[in-house]
């Protein structure tokens, strides 16, 4: 049980910490709709 917990915690710390309020950039395509979508 100790090993499992340690791995879980380590894995947690490896993740890149995201700043609070991080918003991923919009996908590059498709672009914005200028009139309406059919």
């Amino acid at each position, binding site marked *: 049980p100790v090993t499992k917990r340690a791995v879980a915690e380590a894995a947690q710390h490896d993740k890149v910490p995201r700043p609070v309020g991080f918003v991923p950039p919009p996908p*590059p395509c498709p672009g*914005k*709709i200028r*009139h*309406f979508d059919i």
Partner: protein
Amino acid sequence: APAAPPAPLGCDDPESEAAAEVAVNYINGHSHHGYKFALNRIEDVRVVPQGPNNDIIFLELDLLETKCPILSPTPLANCTVRSFTEHAVEGDCDVKLQKLDGKISVLASKCHSHADSSEDISKVCPDCPQLASLNNTEVLETVSAALNDFNSKTTGPYLRLLEIGRGKIQYHPAHVVAVEFAVGATNCSAEEAKVNVGACQLLPEDQSNFGFCIGTMVKLPTQNLEVDCQLYGHQPGVTYVHAGQDTS
């Protein structure tokens, strides 16, 4: 360390929008029928570098039909996009462009257009008139009646039909046929045409004068025909390519 490859171009990046504008102007400039199209969405963009200051750009564009006939001198920016309930027509285009020393030009384009589905329109607007096929009998009859009516009353040149742009038929609450068609001025006055209409030919290219008519025939409850035609005046270099002579 080698420089990181440039981030892929986004569909809303200024460079993509500049390329799309060149593409849409090219498409409208090389189309001879129907209406002008406006950009609705850049679906995809792909850049293939060819060397210094030399890129090939592949664009996938979503266009929407405007109310401006293709022969109209109205700038595209002033052309209203046909609304969803007016039975919109969408164009899908794949365009290959080259950006050489900062100048963008079209190498090839392929488009096809299709009207929105009748079901979609009916869902949103059950009583909205729907597009009919251009060889629908009621559409053909209404175009003929409208053009004859206009020619019988005009003091200007006798007009000949170039092409039917669209026809819509509504059945509720009244039976109405609405048509739009392109016309060309002939070398006859309306009076001369009454004598010998066979002699009335479209004006030669250096004097051509194209226009556009909108006609509405109310069939029920009582028959009533309204038509309005506007001529654009001579536009140097603007020619009408009769269907069938067109190049893809």
